[in-house]
């Protein structure tokens, strides 16, 4: 038994991509972007605030870092909740000491359930972006469009109402999308998204409901990927983030603006034995004057003001 002839047909074998979402270009060939103050490197410090439901459905897959034990998985439920009760306050203290301007990527359901936390984040300042409803509401190919549309709308509207902010950005749980997600984001007034991790700069992303800007939120250097998926040590994570920072700063000096997007999880890096490592990373960043550390929306605006038809 062999495969049908269609297995050797390649309908998208053409110049560019096998989709129409964005244009093909290489980073080194694009127009030079300079960040405000003529800085070569923008740093987006993104804090993912997440709710992992105890009654996880796992549709269409179990979200990484979610429940793994038979119900009720008190172990993972409470360990993730630790981030919202304890870990985040260590991050806030570290941020306050260093004047960090964070971006809060929050599950809308968490924002609704923990008004104290939300008020504390608002009081600190920083931009909120919508991180979907919760970590068990994944967006995926084959999902009913109306069902997904309702989740996106409810998430964005809830967060707008609770924060009073415009809510311009979106980060899908597990960075997973359906074929419709970009259109649904655009329909709901979302301007940028962090899901596609294919660049070290923002770029234009097409939808049938208007354009988004993709702001790649690096997975490779995020705390959970390095320490939970790859099981590297805390010290190695510091090395990896600071090595990435040093390299992008140097490339930015030589070639034009670069974006370092650092995603953090308070349930992980907010632990007592890890928070010092985050502080070391923040100190490394703060020690460099050629860096523009800003919320994602400001980075988006600076990019758009210069990009033109860059993509």
């Amino acid at each position, binding site marked *: 038994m*062999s495969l049908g002839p269609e297995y050797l047909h390649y309908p998208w074998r053409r*110049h560019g991509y096998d989709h129409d979402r964005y244009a093909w270009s*290489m*980073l080194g060939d694009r127009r030079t972007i300079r960040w405000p103050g003529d800085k070569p490197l923008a740093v987006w410090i993104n804090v993912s605030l997440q709710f992992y439901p105890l009654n996880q459905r796992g549709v269409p897959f179990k979200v990484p870092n979610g429940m793994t034990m038979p119900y009720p998985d008190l172990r993972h439920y409470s360990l993730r909740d630790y981030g919202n009760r304890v870990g985040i306050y260590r991050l806030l203290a570290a941020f306050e000491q260093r004047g960090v301007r964070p971006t809060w990527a929050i599950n809308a359901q968490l924002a609704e359930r923990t008004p104290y936390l939300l008020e504390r984040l608002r009081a600190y300042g920083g931009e909120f972006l919508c991180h979907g409803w919760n970590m068990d509401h994944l967006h995926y*190919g084959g999902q009913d469009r109306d069902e997904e549309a309702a989740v996106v709308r409810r998430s964005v509207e809830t967060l707008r109402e609770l924060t009073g902010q415009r809510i311009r950005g979106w980060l899908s749980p597990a960075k*997973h999308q359906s074929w419709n997600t970009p259109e649904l984001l655009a329909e709901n007034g979302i301007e940028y998204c962090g899901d596609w991790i294919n660049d070290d700069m923002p770029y234009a992303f097409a939808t049938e409901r208007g354009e988004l800007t993709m702001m790649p939120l690096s997975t490779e250097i995020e705390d959970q990927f390095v320490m939970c998926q790859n099981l590297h040590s805390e010290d*190695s994570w510091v090395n990896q983030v600071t090595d990435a*920072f040093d390299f992008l700063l140097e490339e930015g000096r030589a070639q034009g603006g670069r974006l370092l997007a650092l995603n953090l999880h308070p349930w992980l890096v907010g632990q007592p034995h890890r928070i010092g490592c985050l502080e070391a990373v923040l100190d490394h960043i703060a020690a460099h004057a050629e860096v523009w550390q800003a919320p994602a929306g400001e980075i988006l605006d600076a990019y758009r003001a210069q990009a033109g038809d860059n993509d």
Partner: protein
Amino acid sequence: MQAEMKERLGAYDYWPYEDRPKITWPNGARVAFWVAPNIEYYELDPPTNPQRKPWPTPHPSVPGYSIRDYGNRVGHERQMALLDKYGIRGSVSLSVALCEHHPEIITMCRERDWEFFSHGIYNTRYTYGLSEAQEREMIRDGIETIHRHTGQKCAGYLAPALSHSEHTLDLFAEVGQELFGEEGGIYTCDLFHDDQPTPIHLRSGRRFISMPYSLEMNDTIVYAVNKVEPRHYLTMLKRHFDRLYAEGAESGTVMCIPTHNYQVSCPHRIKAFEEALEYITGHSDVWVATGREIAQHYLAHHYDDALRDIEAKAATAGRS
């Protein structure tokens, strides 16, 4: 599924790594060193294959697709700059559809006289389930596409996503010979049984070798499968080189670093790779070459001695 599976591969004989005929590389080098950048294209919505899922989650599997795209959009130019700096010409393991999707990358590699060898059409189209005629068609497409876009006579093969059939090596050698005579289809990267080139048995009896390509040093295996820390990868590369360099004083060895632009060129990993290249190319007695150059040298100078030695030892050495 195969109707009947073989117990033994039978592509090569048992040939112990001692008392082999001496391999001499050009200028008396101890190690033939080559870098094989895999320049791949993974499809966003590939067809299903009954034996292997292209993506772990429902399409579009954005995390996996987009990091591989990072390799082409961002990583390639970084790695190319490093190879330029250390005087290394890449031997590209190419998803040949990249010639159509991203010809700008092909042009840059051509300008540097890099080698291209076939790594299938897409890394999301597997050999599994193809009839022999279909696999032959896919292999021919790969070789012809490389020739059309680069003028090169494809010498090597690494099956797409390391998906094989029992006929893969035979078919590649046959199609290569059919199209380009003795210059086409002379080595495979699909076997990991040795640190030196070795002759391969083919049903055609053609002169054909296995080229050491090393999964152990492959950055995707190191980083994504074995989850090694970047700075430890540097340690591994140095140790691997040091031992092959020492052994190469007796008889020439081969070291390959297979890379992927979405792994080794990431900002947190590229320094480790650069230090490894600096270390290796900083030694005298290293022949920095391409896969084709190593294969041609071996076929011209050592293949016949190897065959005779294998033959002479066959009665006592055993089979594998």
